[in-house]
């Protein structure tokens, strides 16, 4: 076998192996999307009921609570960025990081300091490489987040919101994650969690607006309920964001791996053509060498006979 042909054969073999891997990853991601989507659906009733309850307390009582009232001059904001632990998901992590950068820019423009909290090793690596300060980061659960993970993430955020701004607390809490719209569309979104902005909260609008909310009796008191309710609300929103981010990550992986598999297929096809051409060229060359050799021999013999 000629050297050229051997090189092509080797490359085809290696691309075929890669294609098998990307195909497997595509299939794994596809099966995980379904699971992640189911989890998003399963967590929805809790989130809906909680939003409804928060709306009821915030609108139905005149209580002033640090978590619902906007500070007169907010000076510091916390930003929670949800990325993934692993790559191979196309532009998934870079898109959401870009969205976070835009929000940071905007908040800085409004004269606020930004404390960054990160979920997922990709975001940590991005900020680490640029030597930017990250208050706290988490990783290891982005593929399959549980409610306990959401609680762990929410705890320091809630603590810093409840702290006074002068002592290092924050006035606002923003979250940037990738919203899972459909199998094909996932968009990075930036939401403000706290202080509550009830009229712009889409779920509150859907649930709370059409019907007049009843006048609730609070047990033990409106403040007590709100105190207990808002941390849960933040946790549930973070949980929902983590789940959506996980579903989006799997969808992005699936798309990226599908593209990789298709590309590998194309590459194998064109390499196969090249290998065929090389083999044919080799055969042609051998034949012409034989023909040339035999005619040279015939010429020589013809000369000696005379």
């Amino acid at each position: 076998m000629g050297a050229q042909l051997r090189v092509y054969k080797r490359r085809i073999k290696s691309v075929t192996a890669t294609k098998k891997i990307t195909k497997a990853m595509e299939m794994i991601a596809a099966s995980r999307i379904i699971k992640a989507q189911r989890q998003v659906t399963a967590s929805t009733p809790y989130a809906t009921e909680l939003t409804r309850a928060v709306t009821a307390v915030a609108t139905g009582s005149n209580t002033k609570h640090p978590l619902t009232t906007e500070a007169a001059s907010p000076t510091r904001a916390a930003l929670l960025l949800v990325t993934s632990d692993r790559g191979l998901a196309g532009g998934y992590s870079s898109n959401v990081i870009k969205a976070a950068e835009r929000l940071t820019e905007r908040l800085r423009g409004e004269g606020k300091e930004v404390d960054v909290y990160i979920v997922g090793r990709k975001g940590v690596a991005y900020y680490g490489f640029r030597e930017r300060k990250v208050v706290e980061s988490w990783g290891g659960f982005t593929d399959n987040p549980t409610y306990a993970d959401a609680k762990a993430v929410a705890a320091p955020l809630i603590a810093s919101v409840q702290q006074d701004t002068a002592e290092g607390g924050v006035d606002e809490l923003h979250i940037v994650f990738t919203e899972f719209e459909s199998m094909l569309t996932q968009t990075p979104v930036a939401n403000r969690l706290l202080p509550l902005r009830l009229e712009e909260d889409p779920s509150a609008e859907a649930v709370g607006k059409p019907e007049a909310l009843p006048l609730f009796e609070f047990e033990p008191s409106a403040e007590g309920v709100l105190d207990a309710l808002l941390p849960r609300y933040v946790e549930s929103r973070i949980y929902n964001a983590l789940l959506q981010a996980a579903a989006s990550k799997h969808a992005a992986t699936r798309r990226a791996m599908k593209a990789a598999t298709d590309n590998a297929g194309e590459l194998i096809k064109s390499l196969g053509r090249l290998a065929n051409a090389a083999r044919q060229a080799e055969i042609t060359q051998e034949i012409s060498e034989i023909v040339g050799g035999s005619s040279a021999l015939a010429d020589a013999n013809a000369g000696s006979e005379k």
Partner: protein
Amino acid sequence: MADLHVELVAADRNVWSGEAHLVVARTSSGDIGIMAGHQPVLGVLESGPVTIRTSDGGTVVAAVHGGFLSFADNKLSLLAEVAELADEIDPQRAERALARAKSDDDSAAERRADVRMRAVAAK
């Protein structure tokens, strides 16, 4: 007897939903019993068993660890971070967890295990 609609929802799943005529739960200011037509109420739940007397005469007991209840328009929502039906609880496991929590001096785990045991006992 008039019935109310009950939704028992945990953070990650819908635990139980259906019609009932009485629900007893523990709020931070004491046990509260809710029947159809109760005035709208929003309360903070303590860890404890929640007893639901269903319309068909059965009883559903669940161990609830922290959360809320809200009642309005004859619909009661019990929101819990963690909720388990008594049928789902393995008494032996809960007992082991209780013993372990006692020896580790982990009061939170001890309370959780205790609530589970009480939910099983109330079944």
